[in-house]
């Protein structure tokens, strides 16, 4: 079909006709990668918030106290960075901006009102998801960069205190934004029913794909069929 099909279809995506139709959206590897990232992010948020505001210091108890938070937080950050790097490498192409994304974004009122029928057909990711992706990518780079500057135990000697002060400010602002983006991301997954199974079982229903990512579905359908059953499907079926 279209020459840009590679942009809209991820590795391992495939359609399984039936009643209902199921569509493989995420491979096992992608889902593990996502959940590592997600867990890291949550732990980082919790530990980071415990140091961000005194009212939240109680959260440090989840990690065994402030000393543990101080020790663990940066290491989780390193895990997050590399884990997210994995996601980035997997998905960056699919998140490149398209003409229809602009239209989609312009009709954000319809998006929020769930008038999906009034929206243009989008590929694997809609503009909102792409914004999440790119803002997270940017914020994580900022966070890891500023985080290293304020990682006192190993890196204190390499920067001036003034630089470290800036890093602290930048780190906390970036973290607030990242958490806000994360809230949006999680909310979207909760609001749009049938989304979470994509990251749990790896597949969505055909209707979900039709409703939210029709262009992606069309491209998948237009592709030659994949072998049946995939390993993913077998496991999903066993569940």
């Amino acid at each position, binding site marked *: 079909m279209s020459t840009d099909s590679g942009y809209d279809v991820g590795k391992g995506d495939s359609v399984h006709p039936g009643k209902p139709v199921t569509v493989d959206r995420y491979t096992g590897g992608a889902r593990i990668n996502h959940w590592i990232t997600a867990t890291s992010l949550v732990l980082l948020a919790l530990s980071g918030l415990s140091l961000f505001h005194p009212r939240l210091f109680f959260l440090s108890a989840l990690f065994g106290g402030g000393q543990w938070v101080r020790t663990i937080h940066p290491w989780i950050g390193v895990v997050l960075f590399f884990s997210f790097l994995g996601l980035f490498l997997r998905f960056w192409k699919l998140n490149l901006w398209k003409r229809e994304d602009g239209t989609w974004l312009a009709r954000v009122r319809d998006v929020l009102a769930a008038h999906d029928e009034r929206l243009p057909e989008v590929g694997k990711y809609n503009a909102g998801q792409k914004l999440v992706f790119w803002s997270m990518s940017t914020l994580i780079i900022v966070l890891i960069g500023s985080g290293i500057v304020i990682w006192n135990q190993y890196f204190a000697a390499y920067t001036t205190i003034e630089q470290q*002060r800036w890093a602290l400010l930048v780190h906390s602002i970036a973290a607030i934004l990242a958490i806000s983006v994360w809230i949006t991301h999680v909310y979207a997954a909760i609001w749009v029913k049938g989304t979470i199974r994509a990251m749990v079982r790896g597949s969505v229903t055909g209707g979900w794909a039709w409703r939210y990512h029709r262009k992606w579905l069309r491209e998948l*359908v237009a592709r030659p069929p994949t072998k049946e059953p995939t390993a993913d499907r077998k496991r999903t079926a066993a569940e």
Partner: protein
Amino acid sequence: MFPPVLNPTTVPQEPKFGERDLMRRSASTVTPPAQRQTEVAKLIDVSKCIGCKACQSACIEWNDTHPQLESNTGIYENPHDLTPDMFTLMRFTEWENPDTNNLEWLIRKDGCMHCEDPGCLKACPAPGAIVQYSNGIVDFVHENCIGCGYCVKGCPFNIPRISEVDHTAYKCTLCSDRIAVGQGPACAKACPTQAIVFGTKEEMKKHAEGRVADLKSRGFDSAGLYDPPGVGGTHVMYVLHHADKPEIYAGLPNNPAISPIVEAWKGVTKYAGLAVMGVAAVTGFLHYMVNGPNRVSEEDEEAAQRLTGDRSS
């Protein structure tokens, strides 16, 4: 001679200040005591200092610290910087006075200034790791310290140091354990020339006036007291022969204050950040309440079946 502090007693005594006298406590709110204790201060008269390092020696002995044996790097500062085991340090500057062409060997005892508005305490995220007593002493409580190093960034004087052994922050305590039993700090007791004296802040300011007058009589027209208002004044003050140029004393900050970056981080960012995150969460919640879930309809499924059916047929 300024009256020296009397010899300590070995009889157990109740400490003269404690928890009840807390004026500030890091990452916590405390109710300041109704009546503030008399403010204490240490006055360091740089013009009387002979750089003998007795203060460093007494500090090590009293606080049972073990600074590392370093090597000579062509300077007199040893250790070369403040460390978690060296709470005070003589810093030496060879300064040629352009007005007189005379060499002046400026020797400043560096260490915690015990600011009235302590940047370390402001920056500290760990409840109760840094406390300020109403007598002005800013002290670190190691049980509560998490070793994050925020105090280092908060301090306008670059004083706290993080131990690589127990990962907590260290600095001069003003010998709070000695002051609590009516003694002076170990450095002040040891100082051979009384370049360091200790007493109430008022006493120290008065003593400083006399010293400044003496220095002016000897031709140091810019002699003065260093009690920087930018941090609300300090409980360690200097008499300087060139008070107009504190920076020549190994970089003593001219008009120090808590960095605006730290103020922004600990001020507006802290509240705005919580607000932004809160708004995001609440918006989602309200949106859900108002709009309900966004569900896939039967028609959608059928459409999908049609689409795939079309292809598979």
